[in-house]
């Protein structure tokens, strides 16, 4: 389909991609979003480890390390993802009641 679109391709010339399209494609594949979990006084430490294992498929040692980072430093970056995947992870972490946000990194 794109091969017949004169805006994108001309004979004997390199592919020309419009800047806004290029930006959209870059955004879609760029893992430029950090998923951050913040400390709170209510969620149990064992519960946070459980959620990291369940949602982020972390090993017990990774889940425990990130939980301790949340507990001691107030937050932990638990994933770096595309915008779409980061949104999904934030939804899943919040479904379990964790204080999770996504931040441009």
């Amino acid at each position, binding site marked *: 389909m794109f091969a017949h679109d004169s805006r994108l391709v001309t004979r004997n010339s390199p592919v020309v991609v419009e800047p806004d399209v290029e930006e959209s494609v870059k955004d879609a594949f760029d893992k430029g979003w950090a998923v951050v979990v913040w400390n709170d*006084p*209510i*969620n*149990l430490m064992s*519960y946070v480890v*459980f959620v990291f294992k369940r949602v982020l498929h972390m090993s017990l040692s990774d889940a425990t390390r990130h939980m301790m980072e949340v507990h001691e430093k107030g937050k932990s970056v638990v994933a770096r993802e595309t915008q779409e995947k980061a949104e999904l992870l934030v939804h899943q972490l*919040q479904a*379990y009641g964790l204080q999770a*946000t*996504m931040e441009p990194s």
Partner: protein
Amino acid sequence: MKLTKTAEGWVLELEWLERVIIVTALEQQATHYRTPLDQLDPVLQAHWRGRLSLRGGEKAKEASEDLAEVRAGWRGERLQAIERWLQVLNLNDVDQVQSLGLTVEEIETLVQVFNERRLVLAAEYGIGDAAMEADLESGPVDQTQRAVMEIHLLGVVLHVLISALDGELE
């Protein structure tokens, strides 16, 4: 309180006092879910809006609205699950242990509901680190301390449930 795996699925066995704690928490949470969002205390409305990003700017604005919609959807789903469980559990029979059959997915929902009950109590009563670590045996017990006690009790319940689920994840 015992959660065991059988050939048909999981069975949660509860003695009377355990049922009192669990049924009371579920009934309170069901009332919370039934209350329209705009009639909740502003702090609870904020809890249900959630927050997607602190620095996301325009890119995260639309997605924040999606998040609020998704979060609101959990209320109806969880209310339905609670209503199913409350049909099975009752407080009339003091001497008998009662059983609640659960799938793994239902245990996860139960975990989410109990944890949410803890978060809602904390938001409603402004419970932070100091209140969570306060000595509950000293002085008269007020509503906030009762809420802290419930948060701690449900923490024990959660511990039992996630110990069972941990085995399923490994």
